[in-house]
């Protein structure tokens, strides 16, 4: 059992540190005016890409470094110690790029991956819809192929993070409604500036609008816009979801919910620091947050030895969100209403967490999956198996009326 760097890892860490010592001052400042944040973070990602620090786990042929998850973590640790942000397009580089590498054509790889890496083109994930979140295979956005091979896309996506400044989106659409729902799906690359695309910001609890609803009104897509084959969209989506799990599972510490952060806020109130009840709550939640740190190291260690983490990686997400909610509640209880000032970091955390519970798979869905796939418990009876999607929709409408 060893948490220490190997000599190679230590050398790599030194290199990252050296680079940061020279360039950290170029990182976007905190508290930039809202309209400057995204341009500054794009420029920073470009800078990181040039330095070989943006997509270290990508293969070299796509502009990455061909390194492993450990190097990724070293970068995360060093950046967080230096107090500078990482890349802007975590969704693209972490989830959608790898999906294109796995399922895309050679042309797609050479056209899209470079600009994605350099943040010249930011990407968004156009999966969820008003009637298809947990049950993602129920998407209704409809793409129909035209005689000339091109496609016409209509429908609506929702909760789309970063759509407001994205150049492209990876979109899951239905291309055949007369087969069971997992079978009639196809994945597309959609230019966000295409005619017929409308993006509307959705404000969240905090009042900010980090995600969006996106409407598609008879949008024309080129014949070669599909990724992974017509009718094979579900398999392609599963790849993205696997990388999403990885990003979330190994990245929860990166969300910044370190136990020390909450302890600091409590330590600032000497009375609270001696209150039995406050200490009990801090001790419980602190243990949870500490366990996440080591669950993360265990995950990495698994990755390093070549095994792909299973669905149990989702447990870390459940713990992180629940513990962060408890911790933010505790700090806010201690500090009082002032902690709920709109510009306070704990007010932001308080507002952000309820949504995080759903993002990337709700707690209930994660528990279903883990119960079935890890513990081997029997699935619930399903009413949608083997039924053509069109018929399923008709039955749903009937049930509601």
């Amino acid at each position: 059992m060893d948490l220490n760097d190997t000599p190679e890892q230590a050398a790599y860490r030194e290199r990252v540190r050296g680079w940061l010592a020279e360039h950290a001052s170029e990182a976007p400042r905190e508290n930039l005016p809202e309209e400057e944040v995204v341009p500054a973070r794009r420029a920073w990602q470009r800078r990181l890409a040039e330095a070989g620090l943006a997509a270290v786990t990508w293969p070299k042929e796509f502009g990455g470094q061909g390194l492993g998850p450990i190097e990724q973590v070293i970068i995360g640790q060093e950046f967080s110690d230096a107090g500078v942000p990482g890349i802007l397009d975590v969704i693209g580089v972490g989830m959608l790029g790898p999906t294109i590498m796995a399922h895309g054509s050679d042309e797609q790889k050479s056209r899209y991956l470079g600009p994605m890496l350099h943040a010249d083109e930011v990407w968004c994930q156009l999966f969820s819809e008003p009637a298809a979140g947990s049950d993602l295979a129920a998407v209704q956005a409809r793409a129909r192929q035209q005689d000339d091979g091109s496609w016409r896309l209509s429908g609506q996506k929702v909760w789309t993070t970063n759509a407001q400044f994205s150049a492209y989106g990876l979109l899951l659409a239905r291309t055949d409604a007369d087969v069971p729902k997992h079978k009639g799906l196809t994945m597309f690359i959609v230019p966000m500036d295409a005619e017929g695309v409308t993006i509307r910001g959705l404000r969240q609890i905090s009042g900010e609008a980090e995600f969006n609803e996106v409407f598609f009104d008879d949008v024309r897509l080129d014949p070669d816009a599909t990724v992974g084959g017509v009718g094979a969209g579900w398999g392609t989506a599963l790849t993205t979801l696997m990388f999403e799990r990885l990003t979330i599972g190994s990245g929860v510490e990166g969300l910044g919910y370190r136990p020390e952060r909450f302890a600091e806020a409590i330590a600032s109130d000497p009375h609270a620091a001696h209150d039995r009840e406050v200490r009990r709550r801090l001790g419980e939640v602190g243990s949870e947050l500490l366990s996440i740190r080591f669950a993360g190291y265990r995950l990495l260690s698994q990755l390093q030895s070549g095994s792909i983490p299973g669905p149990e990686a989702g447990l870390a997400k459940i713990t992180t969100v629940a513990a962060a909610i408890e911790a933010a509640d505790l700090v806010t209880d201690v500090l009082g209403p002032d902690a709920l000032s709109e510009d306070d970091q704990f007010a932001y955390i308080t507002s952000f967490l309820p949504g995080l519970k759903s993002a990337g798979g709700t707690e209930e869905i994660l528990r279903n999956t883990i119960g079935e796939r890890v513990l081997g418990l029997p699935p619930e009876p399903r009413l949608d198996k083997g039924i053509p999607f069109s018929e399923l929709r008709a039955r749903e409408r009937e049930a509601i009326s």
Partner: protein
Amino acid sequence: MNLELSDEQEFLRDAARDALGRVKTVDAAREALEDPAQRPDLWPTACEAGWAGLLVGEEGGGAGLGAFDAMLVAMEAGRVLAGVELLGHLPASALLDAGQYGGLSAVAEGTRRAALLAARPPGGLDGDAWTVEPRSGSRRADAPRAEGDRVSGTVTWVPDAPGADVLVVVTGDGTALAVDAGQEGVSVEPVMRYDATRSLGHVTLDAVHGETLQVTPEQVSHAWYLAQVLLAAEAVGTVERCLTDAVAYAKERFTFGRAIGSYQAVKHALVEVLRRRENAYSLLVYAGWSYEDRRDEFPLAASAARSSAGRALDFATRELISVHGGIGATWEHDAPLFFRRAQLSRRLLGGAGEATDRVAGELLARVAA
């Protein structure tokens, strides 16, 4: 970074599982509730397997293994409710080793069994004293006092004290003495409470002779935390067993035409047991790593492990009962035995709640520093 078990560790774990599997320890746990004489003597097994000297360095005649190795054995003991006296012996042996105790090799061999009269180190809400378990109530008692090489005092609820040959006594000054349990003035009253697999004793020392160990207060305090992680590791083993049993039953018990494990209320609760097991195990890893490489974090890691594993055990044992419905609450079933284990463990060695408070104390101290 590598947190996977090494081949040696897998071997140690499998050998422990094998050795303990030869005795029907869970059945014995039930029988011993009515007749304590039915409690199997597993110390010979421990000696044969080399567990007695696990934490003693090779120069001292031990195996010189790490805290995490000890936890692996404790997990296996917890899985089958094996009453093997490692909770008392291992932390005591680590202190004897650090303090260059004269009779170390016999302790490492296990021909002389040791027990730790642990005292909780200063810190926490009730001040700067080294304290021990009170006989009853919530106010902690003073640790024994030493004058020269004579030590006096009472320590209650000491794990594995009955039958121990060497008592490692922690004093109110944070020093430690090795006391020969056979001498005049040492009295050990065996007690059994609720969980018959756990051997406990009330120990009274009346100006008895002890060999002062050359150890720092920090080393003495780490013996306390070592006991905390062993208790935590045992708990994780028991949680794993509860989960296996509960999942197996949830697959084969049918109601309303479906296996009960297909109902989300049951499924999600079982995933909750798994989640708590994973968290507690991750903290054991933290404790094992900090013991070797980052000693200043060991108190935090050990307290967090104890707190988390304790809560996991509470939850898992109650869940095991409820998944089994009515039969889970009957004497013939194993579930009550795991439940009894949880109920007693939670109240030993400072109590799980105190460990939780220590986590807060350590975190607050770290950010203040």
